[in-house]
């Protein structure tokens, strides 16, 4: 994969900066050795502290319209405050979770998720089902629903879907995901096979026998296509493709269209009259308008939402999470707790160990045992910011198993670490860690990490590196650092979007931009992953991915620290607020303005 570090950004600076934290205080985690008075032993006040099982299904029988939310009312204006504008709205260039949240109400895809809490069902959106295959995933057929239309009233045809998929290959739109392109080409270097429709060529692998039918042919079986089509299967009407300008103003196929947009400042979404609720089994579309405001810092936005004056009573924030400075205030107020959504986000944080530099697995294990998991979590806001993690995948992943391989106490085990380090003959080994000198939290994390690692017999050298350059530097196999944080989110709830991009040794290349920042390379695991990728049954594949998770952890190229959780507050005039478990933030679906 091309993109460095988090595929999708977690709201706020946590995922990027904050190094660490880890596993299972409450989550079946690291054992109960912490003292009772210890803040790490204190139970979270969060209602979702216990593990929620995520139920995934594919349902090929769902049709519109969607069942109504009890008490919901049509009408009203929802105000959205976000610190940053969404960089891309062109379906070929969308990748961040906030972009996907907005695209959800603007653009329909071939498939989409229906979410009710932890019950997540993939259904046909524009298509009548999630895709049909008879040969294990090489050939796929989709049929479009009747009555689906563009914002200008013209029907959405199979040619539009084909054109939208072809646009994904355009080299100028490299910000988006590349799964589909690689699958079609049979190689990660898909640009050499097809370069998009602007060169005048069409893609033979996508056939459109009639206006409603799309047949896609891959070189190898690709059983994850139904999930990918929720991400990449978005049609574009060729006659309305404004190319670069499409990014600012895509043609709508969803319940809302863009009425006005000022980059980095504001955006107004109004109803799209061409959208027919009967054709859509997913979207509710209660408010008349969404008014987005960008640029206000997180802390200020949350003071607004807490105050809830005037139009802020019907305001939400899509990407900003409760800043840790306000967390205690929110957790101690029943009113604020009642109007917050909270859930495990799809992001997992782990510490990557540079296996090019630390080749002895005992030293890597010593780092894992010495790490101050709970102390660091307290620093970034405590149990409400996430559970300490045992596995490399988020609890939102299909097949996720939070099994405890090492039984590390939540506050780390310096004695065990010292023992391992002594056995390896590397007591006093220097560990070089990068940190961002411009960010206070990053400096504080290093203070605590250094204290813990030195207590276990390491010597820690901290090195200030500019945050933007840190991403590039640690993605380079020749980087001089030993230990650095990585956060990752699955693109859809399948291990295929977690394990191969991060730990397939064949993807490691010289220079920056590696996703595998531990540079872990084990041919046996590569072969096993190839095998699991071809399993059609997602439940069975999930079990095998969990097994691979264990096998990778046994060699400690990384150690998981925290399953992030997001808490967001919304105005008291908002009803029907839910947490979107795929995008990891509040959902624009089901929202309504109370009368």
């Amino acid at each position, binding site marked *: 994969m091309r993109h460095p570090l988090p595929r999708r950004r977690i709201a706020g600076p946590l995922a990027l900066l904050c190094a660490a934290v880890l596993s299972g205080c409450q989550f079946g985690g690291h054992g109960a050795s912490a*003292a009772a*008075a*210890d*803040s*790490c*032993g*204190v139970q*979270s006040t969060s209602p979702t502290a216990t593990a929620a099982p995520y139920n995934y299904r594919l349902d090929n029988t769902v049709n519109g319209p969607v069942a109504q939310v009890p008490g919901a009312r049509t009408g009203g204006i929802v105000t959205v405050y976000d610190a940053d504008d969404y960089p891309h709205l062109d379906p070929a260039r969308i990748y961040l979770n906030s972009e996907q949240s907005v695209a959800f109400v603007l653009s329909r895809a071939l498939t989409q998720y229906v979410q009710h809490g932890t019950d997540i069902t993939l259904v046909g959106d524009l298509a009548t089902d999630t895709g049909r295959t008879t040969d294990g995933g090489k050939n796929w057929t989709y049929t479009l629903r009747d009555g689906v239309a563009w914002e200008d009233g013209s029907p959405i045809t199979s040619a539009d879907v084909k054109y939208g998929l072809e646009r994904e290959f355009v080299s100028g739109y490299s910000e988006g995901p590349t799964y589909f392109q690689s699958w079609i080409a049979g190689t990660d270097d898909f640009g050499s096979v097809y370069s998009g429709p602007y060169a005048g060529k069409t893609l033979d692998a996508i056939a459109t026998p009639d206006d409603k039918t799309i047949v896609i042919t891959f070189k190898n079986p690709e059983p994850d296509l139904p999930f990918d089509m929720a991400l990449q299967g978005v049609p574009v009407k060729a006659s309305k493709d404004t190319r670069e300008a499409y990014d600012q103003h895509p043609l709508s196929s969803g319940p809302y269209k863009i009425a006005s947009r000022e980059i980095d400042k504001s955006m107004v979404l109004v109803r799209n009259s061409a959208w027919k609720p009967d054709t859509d089994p997913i979207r509710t579309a209660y408010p008349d308008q969404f008014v987005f405001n960008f640029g206000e810092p997180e*802390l200020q936005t949350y*003071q607004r939402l807490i105050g809830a004056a005037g139009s802020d009573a019907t305001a939400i924030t899509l990407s900003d999470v409760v800043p*840790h*400075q*306000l*967390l*205690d*205030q929110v*957790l101690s107020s029943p009113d604020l707790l009642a109007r917050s959504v909270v859930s495990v986000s799809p992001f997992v944080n782990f510490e990557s160990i540079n296996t090019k530099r630390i080749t002895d697995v005992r030293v890597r294990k010593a780092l894992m045992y010495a790490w*101050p998991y709970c*102390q660091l979590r*307290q*620093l*970034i*806001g*405590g*149990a*409400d*910011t996430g559970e300490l993690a045992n596995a490399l995948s988020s609890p939102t992943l299909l097949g996720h198993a939070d099994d405890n391989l090492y039984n590390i106490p939540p506050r780390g085990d310096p004695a065990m670490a010292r023992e391992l380090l002594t056995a390896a003959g590397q007591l006093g080994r220097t560990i*070089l860690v990068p940190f961002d*000198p*411009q*960010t*206070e939290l990053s*400096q*504080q994390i*290093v*203070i*605590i990490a250094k*204290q813990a690692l030195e207590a276990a017999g390491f010597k820690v*050298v*901290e*090195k*200030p*590196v*500019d945050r933007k350059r840190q991403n590039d530097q640690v993605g380079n196999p020749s980087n*001089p650092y030993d230990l650095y944080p990585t956060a990752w989110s699955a693109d859809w709830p399948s291990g295929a979007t977690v394990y191969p991009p991060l730990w397939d040794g064949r993807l490691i290349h010289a220079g920056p931009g590696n996703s595998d920042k531990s540079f872990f390379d084990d041919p046996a695991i590569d072969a096993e992953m190839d095998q699991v990728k071809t399993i059609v049954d997602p439940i069975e594949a999930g079990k095998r991915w969990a097994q691979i998770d264990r096998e990778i952890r046994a060699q400690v190229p990384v150690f998981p620290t925290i399953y992030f959780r997001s808490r967001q507050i919304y105005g008291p005039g908002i009803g029907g607020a839910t947490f979107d478990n795929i995008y990891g933030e509040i959902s624009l679906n089901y929202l309504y303005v109370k009368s």
Partner: protein
Amino acid sequence: MSIAADPPAGEPPAEVSGSAPGPTRSPARIAWARFRRDRVGVVSAAAVALFLVVALLAPVIGWIYGRNPYTTYGVNQGGLLTPSGLPAHRFGGMSSGFWLGVEPGLGRDVFMQLVYGARTSLFIAFAVSTITTIFGVLFGTVAGYLGGRVDWIGGRIIDIALAFPGLLLLITMSPIIESKFSSPNTKLPTWMRFAVVIIVLSVLGWMSSARLIRGQVLSLREREFIDAARMSGASTWRIVRRELLPNLWSPTLIVLSLSIPAVITGEAALSFLGVGILEPIPDWGRMVKNGADVYSTDPTYLIAPGAALLILVIALNLLGDSLRDALDPKSTR
């Protein structure tokens, strides 16, 4: 009260006009006498002295108090911080064990942070003020005494230096400077960050003292005792050293005393912007910054460094005013 104008200090007492009260009273003693009568000056001097003593004796204070500024008490032991890292008890966790409470997040002792932070602030302030004053006096003396083209060029240099967007430069340059001057595999030495901050604040701060001294030199240059020295064949170097510089003592002292509080606030501002002294060296500016982030839930943490900064800067400013009054009574308030 009426006090005679100061005689130029460089002249032999015999040349002083007869209005001096007595033959044994030197200008310095007269100034000291004036200063002692200024109650504000004495109080502010005592306050500054207290800060200096605290800064110098920080390790002793820590030894008596039983804490140090680096241990993360709140992280190491339970009960001091809430699970989300804020002080668990009222007023920022103030208690007999933690006089000014515990720091949110890392749980270090606020009192010791404050005491050691005084060292950081005062060390940088004295270093920068000394550098800028020495440089300013040299620059101003040369420009003012030589005059003409040299003075014109000096004036333009000051103009350019004043127009420089120094703070922006510092924010963009400091990571580059640091990566250039340190090898990638070693820790950045602590002195390096101090050096960067001191150099930057010095480069940004010498202009006002240079201007002030230049003005003084311009007026002194036309005085009779300089003419007399020149006519008696004294070299330029001798005139500067023996006639000019001794008369520049009082403006120099005033410049120095007013520069110190300005540097303290400047250094705090740098830390506030994240380009000052890094963790784990205690620093008031950083404390104010972190305090501002948590003020809605833990206001106490903002008060300690804020009050310390306020008191020290006011005391230094008042002390500077009093010094000026004592040394230069013509400038009445």
